[in-house]
Structure formats: structure tokens, C-alpha cells
């Protein structure tokens, strides 16, 4: 994907970009050459097994080493058309890089697979799209939601010769890549460039600002299309269940990150100057805490009711927070949101916690943290549109999927964060979209299926 940076940014945008420089800068060609030589080209490579999208990692690294960036990128895109953003946002430290056999050597230094993948996808040059669509099957598939799962599914369906219509509630495609990933992980306008790249295969029409339950219904889609793929993501956030939670300075982190990612000027953001408290322990909590520090909030305290070991943010993410001088308070659960007579948030009260027989208990110690804003990052939930008549089976709050991403409704498949499998990683969403596309294609086109390998080698 060509990283054309010739877009003209305003001074304000440039200032914002400067503030949110890439946390993990790209490798130079020389660095990539040396790093690629570190790959052992393992038999039955553990990194491939650890990659949710099953990219042939040793192969693309060997291609980088042989100066074939086109081949490297193609190997990546074959399995994961969002290889560019996955290279940036994947928690490689718990995926491919954790599996790298070089961790077992004395230096304990895995091959920097994520950065190599980025090197390949950033620098490979293609005339047009890298893959050619198979002959038309005449089949039409509806994809609901243009996030990673939806885009991946749409792309694979199109590659296999199907026509796809994507329905997206927002006015841009990309999903969390566009609206939810920390700004220092996907910098500049990468998410949209990637969307353009994916759509350049052709055969995919995106309807923006078209929401399920409002503008379209599953019933109708089932009628109009040969199959439907649901990738509607998560719409709702979990609550703290405390008084004053509706105060305007008690903010949903995902909403704020979305605002920040779309902002072109700092003036558009309400930035707490002195202090903020972040409640949560996942990557979103880390993301918002670090971004607040970058925006200039003096004191940012991340509070979690359990310990570091239980945090769903990886060690690597926790370290990023520490590097941003975010204060992390563990074993502390929120008791109240403190507001003054004018309705201004002044702080939060917490109670220290401890584990007893595996159960979290409140202790005797109480403490306050002064702050002017509170950012909630205690989890997101799926909210299936109320207006919908046709509802697939929901299990544990998410759409239940069976073999090949099929839902309880015939002809309706689902993937991504709205389904219950995995850890809601971008790369998992991409894989689920891909697998659903392959399954849909096989189901619809049994007699005329173009072998996948043929389509990919085109």
C-alpha cells in the first residue's frame, strides 16, 4: 500500500500529528534488511500458528530479505488484507512475536515481525490492486458494518467474484481503525488509505450513514441479497453504576477517542488541564490515559480494581502507560464520583480491595483522587438494534456463531467484535471476515467456485 503523504494538512492538523507521532516508528530499509536476516525460517513456524490470520510470516520475511517487497506484501495480503493496520495495532507481544523461537535464545529478542510487516506493506508498490477478481459469480452479498471484519469479508468475497454492498452507520469506513485505535498507533490518515486500498479491488459498494435497525433491516437484506455478513461491532459501554455518572465530565473513553481521532484542531477538544482519572484495565484504558498525557493533562491516574496481573492490557501496553508517566493504581474500586455545588467534578473516591477465596472484597482503606474529568474504559457491549425483528441468537451478550461464522439464521454470517470468539482484536476480526467470506462463497457457488489458490495467484 503506497504511503503517499502528499496530503495537505492544515497547521492545526500538523500540530496534532506532531503530538501524536508514531509510537513505534517504521524501520529503515537497512534496519529491515538486518532484522529480516534474523528470521530462522522455521519448520512448522510457531509464529504462523500464533497469528490469528495465519500469515506465512517466514515467507514474507524471506521476501523482504531478498528485496522483494512486492512479494512480501502479497504474502501478507493473501491472508490478511488489513496487514498494514494489523502491523501497527496487533499486540504482537502476545501473538507472533511471543511465539518466535528467538525468545528461547539467551538474548530473548524475537524477530520484530510487526515492524517487518509494516515495512513490507508500507513500501511495496503495486500497479493497481495486488489481486485480480475471479470471474463474476453473479452473487450479491450484504455486509453490515465497514470495520475490519466487514472490510475483510467484503474484500475476500469480491476477490472470489462476488458483488458486495457494505452498509456503514458512520460516514467513514474503517471501524475502530478509523474511530477507536489510539492516535499514536495509527497515525495520520492511515485507516482511510487502507480502506481505499481494500476497495480498489472493485466490486464493493459502500453505503455510508446507513444503520441497521434505522435505514436497513436484516429481514430486507436477507430478501435482497444472497447472503448477509453482520459485523456491527460494539455500540454500548459498560457502566460504573455510580451517582453523578451522567455528569458531562464523566466521559466514555471510546467516545473521546473517536472525537480525538476525527479532530483537526486541538480547539475542538475539551482537554482536562490538571488531572483526569481513567477507570479500566484494558487497552482502551491505556490508550485514553496515554493520549490524555500527550494532550497535556498534567496528572493522569489509571485506577483498576484488581492487580496488574489481571489487567487485560498486555505488559507491553502497561509499559507504554508507564512511559507516558501515567500513574497506575491497582486494587482500588470506585466508590463515588465527587461533584461540587456547581455540578463540577472534583474527584473520585476509591476503596482498596483484596482477594479472598478468589472473590474481590472491599477493604478498610479509602482514598480520594482529585480530578476534573473521569474517563470510563470498563468495557464495551453489543447493543443489537431494538427495531430489528429478525435477531440471531445472542449468547453472553454477543452474536453466537457456529461453524464457519454462521449465525443461528440461515444465510446470515457474523464476525468481529459483535461475536463472542476471541479477544476482540483487529486481526481476529479480519480473520473471521475472511473465513466467513470463504464459507459464504462456498455455500453460494459450490458448482462454480474458483479455487482460492487460482484467485490469489492471479
Amino acid at each position, binding site marked *: 500500500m503506497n504511503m503517499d503523504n502528499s496530503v495537505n494538512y492544515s497547521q492545526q492538523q500538523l500540530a496534532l500529528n506532531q503530538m501524536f507521532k508514531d509510537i513505534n516508528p517504521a524501520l529503515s530499509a537497512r534496519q529491515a534488511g538486518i532484522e529480516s536476516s534474523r528470521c530462522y*525460517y*522455521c519448520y512448522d513456524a*510457531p509464529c504462523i500458528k500464533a497469528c490469528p490470520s495465519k500469515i506465512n510470516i517466514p515467507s514474507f520475511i524471506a521476501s523482504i530479505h531478498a528485496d522483494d517487497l512486492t512479494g512480501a506484501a502479497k504474502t501478507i495480503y493473501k491472508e490478511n488484507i488489513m496487514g498494514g493496520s494489523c502491523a501497527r495495532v496487533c499486540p504482537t507481544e502476545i501473538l507472533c512475536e511471543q511465539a518466535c523461537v*528467538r525468545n*528461547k535464545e539467551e538474548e530473548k529478542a524475537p524477530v520484530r515481525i510487526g515492524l517487518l510487516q509494516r515495512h513490507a506493506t508500507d513500501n511495496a508498490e503495486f500497479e493497481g490492486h495486488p489481486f485480480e477478481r475471479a470471474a463474476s459469480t453473479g452473487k450479491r452479498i450484504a455486509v453490515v458494518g465497514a470495520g475490519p471484519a466487514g472490510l475483510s469479508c467484503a474484500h475476500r468475497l469480491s476477490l472470489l467474484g462476488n458483488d458486495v454492498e457494505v452498509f456503514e452507520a458512520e460516514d467513514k469506513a474503517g471501524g475502530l481503525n478509523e474511530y477507536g485505535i489510539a492516535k499514536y498507533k495509527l497515525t495520520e490518515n492511515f485507516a482511510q488509505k487502507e480502506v481505499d486500498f481494500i476497495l480498489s479491488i472493485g466490486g464493493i459498494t459502500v453505503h455510508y450513514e446507513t444503520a441497521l435497525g434505522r435505514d436497513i433491516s436484516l429481514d430486507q437484506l436477507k430478501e435482497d441479497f444472497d447472503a448477509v455478513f453482520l459485523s456491527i461491532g460494539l455500540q454500548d459501554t459498560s457502566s460504573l453504576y455510580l451517582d453523578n455518572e451522567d455528569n458531562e465530565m464523566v466521559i466514555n473513553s471510546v467516545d473521546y477517542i473517536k472525537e480525538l481521532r476525527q479532530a483537526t484542531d486541538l480547539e475542538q477538544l475539551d482537554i482536562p488541564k490538571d488531572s483526569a482519572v481513567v477507570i479500566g484495565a484494558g487497552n482502551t484504558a491505556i490508550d485514553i490515559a496515554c493520549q490524555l498525557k500527550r494532550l497535556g493533562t498534567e496528572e493522569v491516574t489509571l485506577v483498576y480494581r484488581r492487580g496488574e496481573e489481571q489487567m487485560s492490557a498486555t505488559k507491553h501496553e502497561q509499559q507504554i502507560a508507564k512511559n507516558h508517566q501515567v500513574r497506575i493504581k491497582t486494587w482500588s474500586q470506585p466508590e463515588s464520583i465527587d461533584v461540587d455545588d456547581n455540578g463540577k467534578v472534583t474527584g473520585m473516591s476509591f476503596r482498596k480491595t483484596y482477594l479472598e477465596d478468589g472473590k474481590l472484597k472491599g477493604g478498610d482503606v479509602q482514598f480520594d483522587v482529585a480530578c476534573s474529568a473521569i474517563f470510563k474504559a470498563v468495557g464495551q457491549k453489543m447493543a443489537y438494534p431494538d427495531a430489528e425483528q429478525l435477531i440471531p441468537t445472542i449468547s453472553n451478550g454477543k452474536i453466537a456463531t457456529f461453524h464457519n461464522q454462521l449465525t443461528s439464521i440461515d444465510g446470515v454470517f457474523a464476525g468481529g467484535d459483535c461475536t463472542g470468539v476471541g479477544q476482540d482484536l483487529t486481526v481476529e476480526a479480519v480473520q473471521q471476515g475472511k473465513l466467513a467470506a470463504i464459507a459464504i462463497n462456498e455455500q453460494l457457488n459450490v458448482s462454480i467456485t474458483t479455487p482460492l489458490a487460482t484467485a490469489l495467484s492471479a
Partner: protein
Amino acid sequence: MADLSIDFVGIKSPNPFWLASAPPTDKAYNVERAYEAGWGGVVWKTLGEDPAAVNVSSRYSALYDHNGDVSGFNNIELITDRSLEINLREITEVKKRWPDRALVVSLMMPCEEQVWKRILKLVEATGADGVELNFGCPHGMPERGMGAAVGQVPEYVEMVTRWCKQHSKMPVIVKLTPNITDVRLPARAAKSGGADAVSLINTINSITGIDLDAMAARPMVDGKSTHGGYCGPAVKPIALSMTSEIARDPETAGLPISGIGGIGNWKDAAEFIALGAGSVQVCTAAMIYGFNIVEEMKEGLSNWMDSKGYENINDFKGLAVPNTTDWKKLNMNYKVVATIDEDKCIGCGRCYQACEDTSHQAITVTSNDDGTNTFGIIDDNCVGCNLCEITCPVDDCITMDERSEGQPYMNWMEDVRNPHREEA
């Protein structure tokens, strides 16, 4: 502290590290910098007849290893492009200022006795310690009937060597070209001609690579190229083999050898000396890293010699020669089998892939519940080829353990499986 000094065919040098005849020894400025850095000697870049050679622009190219370091080096530079007068004057001055260092002068002349006679007198007058006859330069000069064009014809080697011995009292070292089928033939010829020593190897005909955009080899001179001479770490194995051939040859056994070819550190030097070299010459490593590398070379060699109890160079010179033999004399009853240390194994599976695809299917793979693999050796299938040990990235993880079954030494000439064996 080991004594590194040498007396090579009467040429004394405080250490065995000489700079080979090449760009680093082209003029007084470089040579004096080398002496200051601690080099024991230099072979001055080859002198020729006036008018001096003229060089092209764009002269070197390289082959790089995985880390981008130079593993092979190629040049199309000719002999000195400075006049004889300037070179001789500088040689005289430098030798006067550095009497304790070796200064050998490399020569390349047309095959005419009078020409050689004249130049030898001039060199002798400089006070230089000896001459090295450049019968090896593989590029440019052979087109003019010199360099490798002489070295490839043993009769010419012998003839010119004899002239040199007749017309000079200086030690004569004959530098051999590797661009020949059997290096022993020119070595024997040099000896017959009276050479005091041979030095080898000169560079190997080479093209380091093709620029696939320009469709021409590097180095490129206005879109065209020509083969050059190859040196650097990549040629060391060839140089060691040729050195051993001459050291082992009964006809040249004992003929002093100055070892050249890919020497970049003390270990390389020790290897050449173990195969019989009495001095070693370095060029590529100095051209890549500068003259200071001699410090680590001297220090390393000395430390190693101390650790082995070798007091001087002669103590280990040639010790590997008797152990370098013909294939037919190897022990057919010797057997090694690979062993994998499971504690050290990181699970990369390179050994399995290599053995399964390209060797003897002697490695097993067992899948573990956690998704990793465990690898093992099938002793009966293992022929002891070392391939797995070579592919293994972990030190001492795969070792080749001796499993000889107590049978006595028996070579191929005695082996019943040999239809042409020599009956006892």
C-alpha cells in the same frame, strides 16, 4: 606473552601480519600509517615499467552477508599508477625510517630478462627486504601478457623466477594465481626456478553481481564492466585449501609460504599458519575497517598462543598439515551420530526440515500439546553428515558424538567395499 616475531626467508618482521600488495600499500603515506598502526610488514603495491598504468574510475564492488557486512570483495584496479621513480624514492625513504619492519616490493614486468634485471637492481638499491613476483593479477594485466598470464604457465613462472634469483641477492617470493586447475604445478615451477617462497592466493576471477536494472556487472564503468579479482572472507576456504596442497606436496614440502586470502582476524591468521604459512598477508579487512585491526589481530594471536603454550610462531606452524590428507586415507570405521540437547533446543525445526528434505530422514518431529514440536534423532538413519548441526542456530545444541564401534583404523584402500582396494 608469546613472541610474534618471524624470520621469513631472511626477512625479519616483529609480527607475521603483513599488508598485501594492493591499494593500501600504494604509497609512503599509507604504508607509514600502517607501520604506525603496528603492521609487521608490507608488500608494496606492484611496480611496473614506466609509463605507469592508468586506472579507470569505479574500481571495486562487493558481496555482502546477511548483516550487510562485506563477505567478498572485487577489484579491477591495475598495478601502481605512479611512476617508478616516485615509488622507488618513497620505498627507500620508508625503509630507512622503519628499519625493523618488513618491506617487500611487488613486481610485474614483461617476460624479458633484461627488463627484470634492470628493475631488480633498482629495487635492491632501495634497501627493500625482498621482492614478490606478481604472477597472479587476474584482470587487465593478463591482456598485456603479464600477471596471471605468466602465473598460469609453469614454464614462465620457472623462467622468470630463475632470472630474478640470478640477478638479485634479495629473497624472491612468487605470488601464485588461484585461477589455475592445480596450484601445485606453478608452485613446483617456482621452486625449481629457485624461489625462496611462494605467496598465495592472488585474487580469483570474479563478477560479484549483476545490476539487474543496468544489466551490467559491478563495478560499472560507463555502463560496462569487466571481471575483477575476488578476495575477502569468501575466498579464505579456497586459499586454505591451496595452501595445504602446497604444504602437503612432497615436491614443495618445506617451501616457505606467505598465506593470503580472506584473513581478517587472528583466527584466520592462525589457520593459515597451522597449514604451514610463515607469514600472512591482509588486504580486504584493512580496506574495510582500516589499519587499526592489526592491534586486535596481534593481541588475539598472542593470547591464544599463550593459552596453548606456544611460545613463538614456529611452535604451531604447520601442525595441521599432517592432519590434512587424501580422502582415501580417512578412517572408514569412524562414526559420528547427531544428538539434540532438548534443553537447549528452541524448536525452530531447521534440522528437521534440512534432514527430511535434503538428507537422510534421520530426524523425528513430535507435536506437543502446546503447539510446539520436539525433535529427535533416528540413530540408525543418521550418517553423521553434520547438516543438522550446521543448520542449528543454537551453540552446542546439536552435537556430533562419536559412536565408533571399537574397530581399528581402516581406510578406503583397505575397505572390502572398495572394488579397487589394495590387497594386503
